[in-house]
């Protein structure tokens, strides 16, 4: 831990906008940075340079915009959730429909952007990790579109509980490599992808799926996902006639939340809420709520809130949702947390499962179990707020992938 002489984390002065991060070393306040083996340093520098180069190139933006429009189907709509609002009996609930994106989640925004970066760097092989499988599918999709080789690392426990996504990845030509180490979930898949990259870094690009990892990944992924928040601002002005009062998103690594929040953080009137996986209980090992229960530490190349023991060993975590089942969180979320700009809270497995059913029956949408966490908080909160207020939920992904696992869990409960 830093010595007591280190100033407190984040105190943006009147001139410093909270969005003016990261710095040149990838710092979001005190968080972020690049804690990786030397073998990866050159590739991260190359990625940083390629990204700066691409940002300055109008042709890059034009190609990505064209793909986001014709391939992904953007912009995604903002939908008033009429029957869910009636159910809650308070503030209006609106959905930002990322679930309507090609491949069924926001993840494709990032994989197309990073795929184009890989092409610019002359790298023809792509590796990725995946938890829920949404990022794996989005990576396999981008690779099929661009003609790149694709290997996806996925924990064997997640392969079991997100089987439909595994099938999709394989159909699009990706190799899905099961990871049997550790808890056999997202964290172990990231470890394995990093190890692959250690030996393949000169010919391979690692498309990390969330706003985690060493600099410059948290910034690049946030930027590619920021289309969510930008479209939300436009749609709110057009469809609601004003900015929303509150915007909520689920947070595992935190990419849909970062993409939704980043364009909004300088709009001080908007309340921003990130919902973590509360799992079975608040006991260590029973949840995956790093910001709610963790402390600053280093995991997967950056400094951020992490769930770890007193010796720095990463804790085992649990969530019914494979995409939130992760002991760390993106460094920018830690920065927003300490700055008090975003509130972070958690929702239990059971609340998420109940909300999945509720939204399915009242709105005709199967939300991803990850998204169901944000929805659960939104329904509770809407019931406490007046009808003239609006809550926008980032409906980050569709829940078809979860249907079989939910049925299995329900059957187990029935058998108890």
């Amino acid at each position, binding site marked *: 831990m830093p010595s007591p002489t280190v100033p407190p984390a984040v105190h943006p002065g009147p001139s410093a906008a909270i969005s003016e991060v990261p710095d040149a070393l990838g710092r979001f306040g005190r968080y972020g940075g690049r804690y990786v083996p030397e073998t990866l340093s050159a590739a991260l520098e190359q990625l940083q340079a390629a990204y700066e180069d691409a940002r300055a190139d109008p042709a890059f933006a034009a190609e990505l915009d064209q793909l986001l429009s014709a391939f992904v189907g953007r912009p995604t709509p903002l939908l008033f959730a009429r029957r869910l609002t009636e159910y809650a009996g308070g503030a209006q609930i609106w959905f930002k429909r990322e679930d309507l994106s090609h491949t069924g989640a926001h993840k494709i925004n990032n994989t197309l952007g990073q795929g184009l970066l890989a092409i610019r760097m002359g790298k023809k092989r792509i590796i990725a990790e995946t938890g829920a499988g949404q990022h794996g599918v989005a990576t396999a999709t981008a690779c099929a579109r661009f003609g790149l080789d694709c290997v996806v690392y996925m924990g064997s426990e997640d392969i079991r509980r997100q089987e439909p996504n595994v099938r999709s990845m394989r159909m699009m030509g990706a190799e899905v490599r099961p990871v049997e180490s550790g808890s056999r979930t997202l964290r172990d898949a990231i470890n394995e992808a990093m190890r692959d990259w250690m030996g393949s870094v000169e010919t391979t690009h690692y498309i990390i799926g969330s706003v985690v990892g060493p600099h410059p990944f948290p910034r690049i992924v946030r930027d590619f996902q920021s289309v969510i928040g930008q479209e939300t601002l436009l749609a709110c002005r057009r469809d609601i006639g004003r900015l929303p009062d509150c915007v909520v998103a689920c947070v595992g690594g935190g990419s849909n939340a970062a993409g939704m929040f980043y364009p909004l953080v300088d709009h001080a009137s908007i309340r921003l809420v990130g919902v973590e996986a509360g799992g079975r209980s608040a006991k260590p090992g029973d949840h995956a709520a790093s910001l709610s229960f963790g402390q600053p530490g*280093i995991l997967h190349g950056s400094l951020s809130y992490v769930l*770890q023991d007193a*010796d720095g060993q990463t804790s085992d975590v649990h969530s019914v949702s494979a995409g939130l089942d992760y002991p760390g969180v993106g460094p920018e979320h830690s920065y927003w947390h300490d700055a008090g700009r975003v509130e972070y809270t958690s929702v239990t497995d059971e609340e998420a499962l109940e909300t999945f059913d509720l939204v399915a029956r009242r709105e005709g949408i199967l939300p991803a179990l990850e998204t169901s966490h944000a929805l659960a908080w939104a329904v509770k909160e809407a019931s406490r707020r007046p009808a003239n207020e609006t809550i926008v939920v980032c409906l980050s992904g569709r829940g078809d992938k979860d249907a079989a696992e939910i049925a299995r869990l329900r059957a187990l409960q029935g058998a108890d």
Partner: protein
Amino acid sequence: MSRDDQPLAAVFASLAARGQKAVAPFITAGDPDLETTLQVIEALDRAGAAVCELGVPYSDPIADGPVIQASYTRALAAGFTLEGLFATVKQATSKVTMPILTMVSYSIIYRRGIDRFVADAVACGLAGMVVPDLPLEESDQLDTAARASGLALVRLVTPTTPAGRAEEIARRSTGFLYCVSVAGVTGARSELPDGLVERVAWLRTKTDVPVLVGFGVSTPQQVASVTAVADGAIVGSALVRRIGELAASGGKTAITAGVTQYVSELVTAARFHPHDRRDHTPGN
């Protein structure tokens, strides 16, 4: 030569005087348990190892291949703690003269607190640290604390490190410089990569500290070819695998006997090579 690498400098000077290159074995602390680790350290010392690198088990070691990962998992499952590590090193340093370094993730150092970790390391007699996930840009705080306490901070250069950066790393490494032979994770490999000899020779011109080669070195033949140009060889996965297998099959006596035999062969292979005509004085 700065004060901070004196224990290591003395070892390399003494080796050079005997026409011997350094064999630096890596073992995982707490695999199968810390009591055995202590016995293995004594066996390494007896076998003529120059330096012992003691790996601190970590739950998420991204630079390690399957063999070392598995040993970390076993050690953590057997109840490894940092308190146990420091106590074991304290016992070991009272019994052996061979310097002991720790190979430790920055995640672990950061969690304990940099100043506290360095103080604990000094108190138990560790000679230095290798921190494989701490690149140059993030290392100022630990570097300052280590220098102030006389602990070596051994830095790593890899095949993907650009020349200018390699020079900077070589200049800032204390104790010795760790030259990673291959781009990849730890683990035994059948062939040493092309260009390694030239790279080591070039690195030796960029630093006053000895240059040791690690990753993929496991056989006496590989130790002989590496030490024909480098000041020493680091052997990890092959030894860790052996300890794991012997622990599963033969018990503790078998472990120390097996380690002694294997490391003795490596030490013999690291004798001065008649065709190696460079100046052997470290710090020249």
